[in-house]
């Protein structure tokens, strides 16, 4: 459970720092009678706060999945699985998609409508490619005898990549909605596409972290760190 505890600790540090900045050391009982100050909350787009909270939930989901894998790895019958090469093509496409969305976000902020359309298209195509690569990886794995119930590693791979694909599909649906609403003005479009870009980076980081855990690299790196420290 160390992975999810690390995640919760990270969230706690961010939350406590934020709370401190928001004045949780104030003494409201001394502010009686006169108007001392009327600070106004908010100040950032509501959608960004909503996305931030959602990323904490989704991050927690994947951290818990990672924790389950790492606990299962401790058992004697665990062996590291050989992933098909197409996984790495998928990863490259995911990186490209993330970069394209970031470029689209910059274009939207500049008000460059043509650049925006081009980069959005590129990002969508790359993400669709990622989904196809994942589908192909599942087929290849099953062909090589590593079907869903065959080995513990394969079970976790299908489960976690499946959850990730569901999050990708949700992201694509949101992006389609943003694309359909572009007529509402450049400022709103820039905000919405900026949020999509953040989500795309999240999908990329999560997938890299999950691959690192599933391939055993994360465990190797942790063991190396422990060896260096001790």
């Amino acid at each position: 459970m160390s992975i999810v505890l690390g995640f919760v600790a990270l969230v706690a540090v961010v939350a406590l720092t934020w709370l401190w900045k928001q004045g949780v050391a104030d003494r409201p009982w001394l502010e009686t009678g006169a108007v001392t100050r009327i600070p106004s909350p908010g100040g950032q787009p509501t959608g960004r706060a909503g996305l931030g909270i959602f990323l904490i939930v989704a991050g927690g989901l994947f951290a818990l999945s990672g924790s389950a894998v790492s606990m299962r790895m401790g058992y004697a019958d665990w062996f590291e699985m050989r992933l098909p090469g197409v996984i790495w093509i998928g990863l490259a496409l995911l990186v490209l998609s993330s970069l394209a969305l970031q470029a689209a976000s910059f274009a939207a902020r500049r008000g460059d409508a043509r650049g925006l359309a081009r980069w959005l298209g590129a990002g969508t195509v790359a993400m669709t490619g990622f989904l196809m690569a994942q589908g192909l990886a599942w087929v290849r794995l099953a062909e090589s005898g590593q079907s869903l119930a065959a080995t513990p590693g394969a079970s976790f791979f299908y489960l976690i990549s499946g959850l990730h694909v569901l999050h990708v599909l949700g992201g694509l649906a949101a992006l389609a909605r943003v694309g359909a609403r572009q007529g509402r003005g450049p400022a709103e479009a820039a905000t919405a596409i900026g949020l999509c870009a953040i989500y795309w980076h999240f999908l990329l980081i999560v997938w890299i972290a999950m691959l690192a855990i599933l391939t055993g690299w994360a465990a190797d790196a942790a063991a190396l760190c422990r060896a260096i420290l001790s």
Partner: protein
Amino acid sequence: MSSVSEDPDSGIPPAEVPDLPPPHAHGWWSRWVFSQDAKYIALQYSGTAIAIGMVALVLSWLIRMQLGFPGVFDFISAEAYYQFITMHGMIMVVYLLTAIFLGGFGNYLIPLMVGARDMVFPFVNMLSFWMYFAAVVVLVASFFAPGGPTGAGWTLYPPQAILSGTPGGTGWGIVLMLVSLILFIIGFTMGGLNYAVTVLQARTRGMTLMRMPLTVWGIFTATVMALLAFPALFVAAVMMLFDRLLGTSFFMPALVEMGQQLSYGGGSPIVFQHLFWFFGHPEVYIVALPAFGIVSDLIAVHARKNIFGYRMMVWAIVIIGALSFIVWAHHMYVSGMHPYFGFFFATTTLIIAVPTALKVYNWILTLWRGDIHLTLPMLFALGFIVTFLNGGLTGLFLGNVVVDVPLSDTMFVVAHFHMVMGVAPIMVIFGAIYHWFPLISGRMLSHRLGLIHFWVTFIGAYAIFFPMHYVGLVGVPRRYPDISASFVPDSVATLNAFISVAALTVGAAQILFLFNFAWSLRYGRKAEPNPWRAASLEWQTPEMPPRHGNWGKELPVVYRWAYEYSVPGASRDFIAQDDPGHPASWSHVP
């Protein structure tokens, strides 16, 4: 940006977040069924939660009938008994308590208490309720499925949960339970996003975090905790569903059942326990923190005193929320964990008692020399404090490994958690309903019926759960449908019969409450605006009950915290949060 008019000389800055009108209903369906008004969604959540809670209440009667009079009721087989305890536990913890505190009180009170027109994502909020409703429908469907609902115990521990020896294990029961939980969590996430972001973004001007009523602090912190904890149950439910339907072995070791070698192998039931309790322990505080917050407000209003140690109360809520994520394995002392882990988790468990005790002291110090009105909300609040304290003290017993091991899986545990997260939060829910019923309906609940309801419930709850500790101490295990032929003394059977009679009586008192609720909705005395003379913002709306959009033309501006009671020199014994404090409302400024 803002529709709020302001005097440039007043020093009130313009709103940073635009005051957008909430979505209006365009027809019968969008007004009465798919409403996006948080107040209406709150009532939908509460109504559904209480309805399914009644099912769980009836199940508890059946459980007690079997335990008190074993063998008398032929229709309660051992399998049926397991199904009753499982569904009773799961419904009460998840579908009633979580849903009513966050979906019910959260939806109704957050926008009103922070001065917002509605939740920030009303459409998602509406979806949240309907996902919850679907979850309840799937849960209820399992009663009618072939083989009936699951009887795996509310913790759904594998491997037994999906084996043929457990009712519903290889049939539909466990599948429907897991699907229902998954739907619930998706729905809750949608609602939770709303509660958290509304508190972060939609507070009105002047409503700093440290001016929020403790109710909002409790619900907000519990929401954030639930958003972090429920994914653990989600992952566990999905993995178990895979094990049950697709033949994976996430949680299933190699095993032989009825002489047959099953196809499972290598999985770890302990992984499930970790995931389940990583959700399960914070869940206790997801229920308790809103109760803490609400009870603080009830005590301050009905004792006409500002809450003692507001800042400490806020910090204690946040610290309890954070600590509750590192205590989960105290539910697993008998799972064969390393003794050092037990030591660690016992230590963190006992540390939680510090901020919790701080809250209890602060409630008592708030009452100390207060102008205590023994209204129904106050009675229930007092009932909560005593009960929570009693339940918490036995928690200190169970938090220690050496005491927990012999008491594990006995009725002592059942008595403990019913006191601390059954009776105590329910007391707060009742107190809150008596307190906010005038705001919601414009009428008062009957005081006389309420008094009968309170005393029967309070004394009855102790008649049920106090003796149950002794039943546990003599070694009676939980989850056994019939112990009459075993080693326990005859006096246990007598005590069990007594507990069952008390349980049925308390159950009947809840029907009296439902009658009071229904009767008062129509015939109750009309409530005057702000009948409890409360200072918090939800009572200061232009109309009572508040209309769609809550605040009329202008959003309120907040000048103070929510606890200005019995202020020396003020003309009334409270000053509302949106009262600018002009000399007109004061006899002299101190």
